[in-house]
């Protein structure tokens, strides 16, 4: 494996493990704020106990989320040095603002939330909890603005003098449609994660017949919050499909295994076996017109297929060759007006020239085979995207069903929920994580071969490190993070089993019996 593959693996590993913790933080923070609001408004002690107990589980998760996030931030520099140099001007801005506006707030308030119960008035503490919840979401906003720019880099241009990307409009970077849609989709996914977490554990108490008043209230709050969250995820997921149809057509075509451009409105492939060899989806089950509707919101616009996209990319690579060559000449000192003008005419395709540079030493005179290889590379592998997307959507649908049933049963105020529902909720516990991870995989693997969409290919973005250095960190991170995940799950289980008795209030089951905490 070369440095690019290793660095990608390391980033994928750190990002995916980081995102085990993030959605739970996003969701639980709001759930805590809601429960504490009920406490402050009604004065009922049980809601304070709920906030504190679920807060304990939230805390176990939070520390790992923060520290793994810190590690990611530095990885842009350690492993993606050229990337940092090339786009730091733009990419660094949202990250810096995230640190300022969100990271500081959430990590400071985190301390106040946990340790400030006896040191602040009820209302002040409530304000702290709400601000903490808002800060976690603001954090997600800025990170997704940065990520959205990687997917769809607007508001910026290449500066031939400095050989870097520079920001031309912060407003465009900020209001990037991809980022906005992704933000709501991602935080809603977090709300669903938090809700399922609470719902599943409460269901377990209900099934065991313990801590009933505590568990029923938690169940009700989680089901309402989760239903709202899951609806938002799905609506915004559909909106993502539309945005992708507009600006990330490669990703959409790969997700849908749309090899050829279909007659409008395109059919949606529900299932099938994408076959890279034959460029065809075997055993496809199709629903007429749905893809066209999702991606274009119309019946007559076409959704371009992979073949058409590749044909178009071939043209861009040819222009990219010129751009690359002109760039070299300008760098060598040829600043004549004609050269600059010629460069400006093809500058938008410079990224494709850079992509080709990964396949040949002589970009301008690349052989047809080398060009063909680069053209192939402009489209990510289809089957991983096709399947992970369907896994994500499948999980989403199951969760919609779960929350619909759960909400219906809480709204009817039946004291005893049916057993099948409680079991359904317990077994649904892994679903949001599966959905989040596959969703991120679709988003980031679908971005390949680009680090910055159509601007900077991934293979150029890396640092000049030795392979052994990256192996060392990759293995260390894998071992360390695995240990931490195991410990977290173990601790979560331990505290979930203890339940609210872990608060030592004397009001809950198990407290008078055998379980004693240190």
């Amino acid at each position, binding site marked *: 494996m070369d440095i690019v593959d290793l660095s990608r693996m390391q980033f994928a590993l750190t990002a995916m493990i980081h995102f085990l913790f993030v959605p739970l933080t996003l969701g639980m923070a709001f759930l805590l704020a809601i429960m504490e609001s009920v406490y402050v408004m009604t004065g009922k002690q049980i809601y304070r106990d709920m906030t504190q107990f679920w807060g304990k589980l939230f805390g176990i998760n939070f520390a790992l989320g923060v520290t793994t996030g810190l590690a990611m931030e530095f990885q842009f520099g350690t492993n993606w040095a050229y990337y940092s140099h090339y786009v730091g*001007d733009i990419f660094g801005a949202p990250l810096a603002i995230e*640190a300022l506006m969100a990271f500081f707030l959430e*990590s400071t308030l985190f*301390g106040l939330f946990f*340790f*400030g119960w006896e040191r602040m008035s009820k209302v002040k503490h409530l304000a702290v909890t709400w601000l903490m919840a808002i800060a976690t979401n603001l954090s997600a906003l800025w990170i997704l603005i940065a990520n959205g720019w990687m997917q769809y880099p607007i508001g910026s241009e290449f500066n031939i003098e400095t050989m870097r990307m520079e920001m031309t409009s912060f407003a465009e970077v900020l209001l990037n449609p991809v980022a906005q849609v992704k933000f709501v989709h991602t935080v809603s996914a977090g709300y669903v994660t938090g809700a399922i977490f609470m719902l599943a554990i409460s269901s377990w108490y209900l099934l065991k017949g313990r801590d009933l008043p505590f568990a029923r209230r938690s169940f009700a709050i989680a089901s309402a919050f989760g239903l709202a969250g899951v609806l938002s995820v799905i609506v915004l997921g559909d909106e993502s499909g539309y945005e992708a149809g507009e600006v990330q057509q490669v990703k959409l075509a790969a997700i849908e295994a749309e090899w050829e451009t279909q007659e409008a409105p395109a059919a949606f492939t529900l299932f099938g076996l994408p076959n890279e060899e034959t460029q065809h989806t075997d055993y496809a089950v199709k629903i007429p017109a749905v893809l066209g509707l999702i991606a274009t919101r119309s019946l007559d616009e076409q959704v371009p297929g992979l073949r058409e996209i590749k044909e178009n990319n071939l043209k861009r690579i040819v222009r990219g060759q010129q751009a690359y060559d002109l760039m070299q000449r300008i760098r060598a000192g040829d600043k004549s007006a004609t050269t600059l003008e010629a460069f400006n005419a093809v500058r938008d395709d410079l990224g494709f020239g850079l992509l080709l540079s990964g396949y040949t030493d002589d970009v301008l005179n690349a052989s047809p085979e080398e060009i063909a290889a680069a053209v192939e590379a402009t489209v990510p592998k289809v089957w991983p995207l096709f399947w992970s997307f369907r896994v994500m959507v499948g999980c989403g649908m199951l969760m919609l069903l779960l929350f619909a049933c759960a909400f219906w049963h809480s709204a009817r105020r039946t004291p005893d929920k049916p057993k099948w529902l409680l079991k359904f909720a317990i077994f649904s516990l892994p679903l949001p994580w599966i959905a989040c991870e596959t969703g991120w995989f679709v988003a980031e693997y679908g971005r390949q071969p680009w680090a910055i969409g159509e601007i900077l290919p991934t293979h150029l973005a890396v*640092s000049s490190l030795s392979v052994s250095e990256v192996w060392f960190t990759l293995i260390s991170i894998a071992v360390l993070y695995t240990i931490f995940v195991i410990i977290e799950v173990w601790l979560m289980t331990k505290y979930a089993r203890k339940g609210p008795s872990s608060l030592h209030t004397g009001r809950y089951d198990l407290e008078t019996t055998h379980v004693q905490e240190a």
Partner: protein
Amino acid sequence: MESQIFDLSMIWAMIIAFAVIMYVLMDGFDLGVGMLFPFAPDEDARDVMMNSVAPVWDGNETWLVLGGAGLLGAFPLVYSILLPALYIGVFLMLAGLIFRGVAFEFRFKAKTSRYLWNWAFAGGSYLAAFAQGVVVGSYIQGYKTEGLVYAGGAFDWLTPFTVMTGVGLMAGYALLGSTWLIMKTEGYIQQWAYRVAPWLLAAVLGVFGIISIWTPSVDPSAYERWFSMVRWIWIFPLLALFFAYQIWSGLRKRKEVVPFLATMAMFFSTYFALLWTRWPYVIPPNFTLWDAASAPGSQLFLLLGMLFVIPIILAYTAWTYWIFRGKVRVGEGYH
């Protein structure tokens, strides 16, 4: 135009320098508390020590995030040269910080494995402090670059000199930690901290002295700076010595707050001396802060955000410390 870039980059360098010293002072004392952990009189004392920093460590550490993200946004070249140059070192530092951060949360919730988290907390603190000190040393040493890329070896950052700066920063953080504990604890824990602090002060002065004498041979331009050009620079080491005396006399008179404040002031003076030694190089010996700056547009935009938000951050950080003011007592478990 030129002068505008000049000003912006300068302001930015100052902001990042500010974030770094904030980080050193604030995370410094909680890392120091972690380093003193193995030597604590008993397990109750460890609980108190941890509780004294538990509500604030996370916010303290965020100054590092700000420094990092600020560098990426305002001086992308620094980010893209320094971090690969320090690759393994940065990894060790982050691993240390992760261990330590997790230990806060997990130690209170563990029972049988508690001693493991004691070690994770202490070990992580040592590792992070040492790695940060090494970074400082490597900055004094300078970095080998070709074009805009780091061209040195994987372990250029690990030399006898940087090991010495690593030890120096460890001693410094431990001193900050011990004086923090003097301020925040009472009874036998405070007495213990009073006994430890003078030794740490001696270690800090000794190591800093060695580093000062050693620096000119690692970085010849430092000699120039100190002995031929600007004389007033000598004010900083003199100030540092003055504050060192304040620490010492504060400890002797059993003052509770003075030693901590004086330690911070001593750090601050030393930091200024260091900055002046290398100014205006951000990637010595080849790149100044102007070489490494991002486009003025990006810098200006970020600057407006910073100037607006930093005072707010300082305000609520101060409020947090106010909320958690006073002594931390045995048995006063937060969790």
